[in-house]
């Protein structure tokens, strides 16, 4: 039976209404993603974002100096503040993820990102998976996505109309959702590599966010589902935006001898080589 497809359960259709619902959901999500454009290209939005950013920084400072109460900010408040990165800092963010498939197998990966402030526009990232070579990509403040090809020592780049970039902020958005949900519970202290840490757990118990007990900085993010889960060990470092640190965000500075190729098709080909499994 294993080698005879006719002996397997027959193929079935998705029920019509479910197929329709899935299609509509997919179109809604893809439209949402297709319409997503860099906010900071519009001056008004940029101005507003700067003002909001400053307000967040001011509020963060006020809360840290204990203006709003005698007990100081809660661990949730500290964790929220820790995720905010002012524009004059470079965020160095490392993720080491392991997926437990629940069947004795697991998959691991690692990402390392350097990002200018909370901007999604200027960043450089190195992605490493267990079964492919590391891939180094970047996004510039001028609106270009780049990928470095070590085989040819070339940086291939394309404008946003051609390129497909992922925000490096997926974890941050998920963590902020949890912290802003109002239903996250603080679940006591835990020691992680000798650090005093605190567990923040979602209402349904499927998410656990472990942060430094003093600073609220991220240490670990866990998701659990039926038959497995993901654990991501996090390293979060904020660096002053000095010349040397700004170079960490810039792919060209990291590979000063590399050629620069702006042909869109060459960029696509280079991305396909860098991410052979998509």
């Amino acid at each position, binding site marked *: 039976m294993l080698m005879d497809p006719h002996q397997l359960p027959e193929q079935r259709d998705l029920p019509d209404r479910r197929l329709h619902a899935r*299609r509509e959901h*997919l179109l809604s999500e893809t439209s949402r993603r297709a319409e997503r454009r860099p906010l900071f290209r519009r001056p008004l939005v940029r101005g507003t974002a700067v003002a909001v950013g400053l307000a967040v920084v001011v509020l963060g400072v006020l809360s840290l100096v204990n203006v709003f109460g005698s007990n100081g900010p809660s661990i949730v408040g500290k964790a929220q503040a820790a995720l905010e990165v002012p524009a004059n800092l470079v965020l160095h963010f490392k993720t080491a993820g392991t997926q437990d498939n629940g069947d004795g197998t697991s998959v691991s*990966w690692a990402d390392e990102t350097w990002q200018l402030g909370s901007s999604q526009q200027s960043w450089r990232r190195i992605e490493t998976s267990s079964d492919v070579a590391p891939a180094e990509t970047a996004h510039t403040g001028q609106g270009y996505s780049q990928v470095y090809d070590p085989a040819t020592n070339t940086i291939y780049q394309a404008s946003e109309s051609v390129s497909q970039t992922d925000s490096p902020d997926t974890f941050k958005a998920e963590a902020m959702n949890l912290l802003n949900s109002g239903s996250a519970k603080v679940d006591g202290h835990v020691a992680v590599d000798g650090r005093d840490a605190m567990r923040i757990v979602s209402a349904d118990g499927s998410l656990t966010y472990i942060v430094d007990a003093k600073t609220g900085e991220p240490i670990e993010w866990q998701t659990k589902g039926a038959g497995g889960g993901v654990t991501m060990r996090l390293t979060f470092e904020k660096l002053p935006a000095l010349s040397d640190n700004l170079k960490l965000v810039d792919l060209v500075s990291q590979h000063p001898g590399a050629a620069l190729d702006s042909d869109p098709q060459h960029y696509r080909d280079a991305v396909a080589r860098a991410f052979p499994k998509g």
Partner: protein
Amino acid sequence: MNNASDRELWDNIVEGDTSAFGDIFERHARPVYNYLFRRCGNWATAEDLASLVFLEAWRKRRRISLTHDSALPFLFGVATNVLRNHRRAEFRYRSALERMPLPQESTLDEDELVGRLADELKMREILGVFSRLPKREQDVLSLCVWMGLSYEEAATALDLPVGTVRSRLSRGKARLRELCAGSGHMSSGSAKSQAEQEGIC
């Protein structure tokens, strides 16, 4: 239904045409859904994973140049990665999945429900034996034997040389025969005898 080829649709998808992507979904949701079911053994999980596969395909649309007239080998490749990395994919699309409206009522009649339950029991037994193969051989066997892909299409799906697909298929088949014959790959004979009794092999 749009009569354009997958390749023509994909050219539009790369430019951000979501309607063309809807056409690709309608064309290929069924085989992707069935492939996922045959790999995971649960219809509901297969349905959720199918959504992840198409969301991932959209994300990767600009990285892909279709090398076959059909987008299906590429989609099977994405599906294979999603099966392997589904927790990570779920993490990536958690917000999107939360926006997925839940079915208000069962859309299946009683016969269909019973049939699907029987499918799941049968597939679980089959996977009990099949999962003893190395994952790389499971991938090739399930695509070539269960879903009927050519060597070239499976090579595209799995991003492997055609020769590697052939050799893994050959090794996988041989190993399956050994499993079914119980030549030391079954533990204490119980799985083997169970598999034989249930007609899995």
